[in-house]
């Protein structure tokens, strides 16, 4: 039963084909078999999961079940979970047990979902390969010598290896879409502000957004229905009304206008990946869509602007880790400065320290205008490019990543090489737009992801576009598990 996606599982539970306890036990069994090698979960909540499953079965027997009741899911380990460690991939938070639940977590509890555990991730979500985690790298279930992508690599691997029905994740520069692409699953990053950030460990607050990792667009729509909506605890949460994201799934695509950014099909894109993407786009034409080229003139500057803005926000956000109120504290500090410095130097890993340093530099006196203000100006140009394109088209499509998953350890010599991993995804965060990655083919047996970007708050349309493709093709059903 665990090979099924979230939507078919929801129907099977409703039909009484099996119970949530049976389903939860099946996942826990699979996790026990696979996780020691894959390292997708950092915490497995066996007792909690089974008690939630029993409660879900009880609720169902009394006629109180919703679509997500009894569905076993996993949370990325940066969503605070009351009573369960939230480590965010860092030694700094290795002992941190949050006294409250993130709004997203609370919403799934209210929906009656089962929490199987917390998934591995790059430290503080800073990475594109899941190799910066304090808890070690996650392996890609398609080929265990490869990375699953990052930073939500644990959530991606858990869904791909059928260790949960769906998982929450977050995306600051591509952290949902790139790992979804590398592991052959469906990843959705909603519009900035669509899902509450309250109780998410902050990385770059103007970019961070929670989303979903699932087998299909239909599954993603069902999860988003639980996650989306205004939360007064998050001052940037949007008051644009949330919708039923499953309602438009089956709308015909006739007349859909697709834009193909010239800049996303240029130098650096693997030729076989390009072939898959062009074939996927041709499939949309068969479904009645029209395709035209669009230009995102400043997209080549998105990585540069991002590596000012995100580290600057991170350096401010991560100043809270001072060893005073929670988290790691160094042993025997001789004075306050010694405590700050040793706590932070011992608690943070190399990449996190690097980004704090870059951010501190960009915000420091004498450099603020040249770097931080300049980056914000580029950010506006990038947003303008999208706005101009969306005057002509409904959605923008292209590759999620220039290539398929790469070998563990192969890109660690120069951070810039790793940063360029997110070349097609980062601009979407800077503009605040919703984006997805859906499976669109295989190259040498490894998954290729198609990125679909929509207008502000057009999640229902994105999910419709992705769902119709998944009705017409079976790439999303390919799995590393046999």
């Amino acid at each position, binding site marked *: 039963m665990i090979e099924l996606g979230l939507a078919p599982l929801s129907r099977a539970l409703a039909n009484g084909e099996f119970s949530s306890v049976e389903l939860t036990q099946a996942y826990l069994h699979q996790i026990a078999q696979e996780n020691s090698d894959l390292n997708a979960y950092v915490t497995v909540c066996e007792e909690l999961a089974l008690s939630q499953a029993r409660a879900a079965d009880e609720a169902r027997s009394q006629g109180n079940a919703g679509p997500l009741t009894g569905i076993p899911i996993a949370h990325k380990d940066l969503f605070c979970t009351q009573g369960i460690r939230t480590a965010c991939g860092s030694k700094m938070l290795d002992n941190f047990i949050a006294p409250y639940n993130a709004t997203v977590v609370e919403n799934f509890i209210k929906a009656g979902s089962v929490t199987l555990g917390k998934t591995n991730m790059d430290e503080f979500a800073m990475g594109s390969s899941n190799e910066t985690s304090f808890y070690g790298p996650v392996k890609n279930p398609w080929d265990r010598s490869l990375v699953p992508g990052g930073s939500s690599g644990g959530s991606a691997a858990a869904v791909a290896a059928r260790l949960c029905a769906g998982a929450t994740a977050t995306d600051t520069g591509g952290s949902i879409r790139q790992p979804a692409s590398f592991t052959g699953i469906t990843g959705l990053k909603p519009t900035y502000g669509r899902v509450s950030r309250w109780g998410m460990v902050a990385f770059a607050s103007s970019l961070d957004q929670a989303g979903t990792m699932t087998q299909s667009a239909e599954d993603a729509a069902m999860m988003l229905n639980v996650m989306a909506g205004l939360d007064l605890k998050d001052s940037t949460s949007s008051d644009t009304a949330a919708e039923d994201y499953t309602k438009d799934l089956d709308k015909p695509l006739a007349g859909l206008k697709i834009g193909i950014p010239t800049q996303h099909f240029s130098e650096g894109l693997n030729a076989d990946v390009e072939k898959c993407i062009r074939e996927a786009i041709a499939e949309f034409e068969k479904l009645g869509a029209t395709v035209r080229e669009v230009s995102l003139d400043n997209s080549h500057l998105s990585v540069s602007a991002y590596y000012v803005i995100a580290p600057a926000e991170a350096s401010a956000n991560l100043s809270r880790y001072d060893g005073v109120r929670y988290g790691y504290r160094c042993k025997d500090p001789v004075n*306050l400065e010694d*405590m700050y410095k040793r706590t932070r130097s011992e608690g943070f890993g190399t990449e996190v320290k690097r980004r704090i340093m870059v951010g501190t530099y960009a915000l420091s006196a004498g450099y603020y205008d040249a770097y931080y203000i300049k980056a914000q100006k580029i950010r506006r140009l990038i*947003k303008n490019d999208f706005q101009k394109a969306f005057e002509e088209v409904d959605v923008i499509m292209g590759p999620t990543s220039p290539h398929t998953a790469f070998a563990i350890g192969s890109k660690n010599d120069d951070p810039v090489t790793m940063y360029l991993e997110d070349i097609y995804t980062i601009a979407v965060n800077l503009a605040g737009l919703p984006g997805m990655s859906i499976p669109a083919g295989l190259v040498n047996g490894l998954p290729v992801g198609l990125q679909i970007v929509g207008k502000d708050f057009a999640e229902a349309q994105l999910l419709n576009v992705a769902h119709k493709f998944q009705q017409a093709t079976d790439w999303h059903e390919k799995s590393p598990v046999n």
Partner: protein
Amino acid sequence: MSIELGDVENIAHLARLDLTEKEKEEAASSMSNILNLIDQMQSVNTDDVAPLAHAFDTAQRLREDKVTETDQRDELQKIAPEAEDGLFLVPKVIE
């Protein structure tokens, strides 16, 4: 733009980080590479462009000025490295 060891030491102090000699050298080299990446921004003239701090130009939402949180001091201090009598303990600050 290249970063020298002295710059690294200054930035590390501002960020309250204590780096070993080896880490300082690594930071100087990797930060120089990152700044080269960042400096590509300078290729575009942005004199007439207003900075964008946030994807949506919206105003800060305000709420009524009334107490909504309950006192959870003991709960919150349970996870502190060191706390006593409702206070967070830190090394001596004033000599």
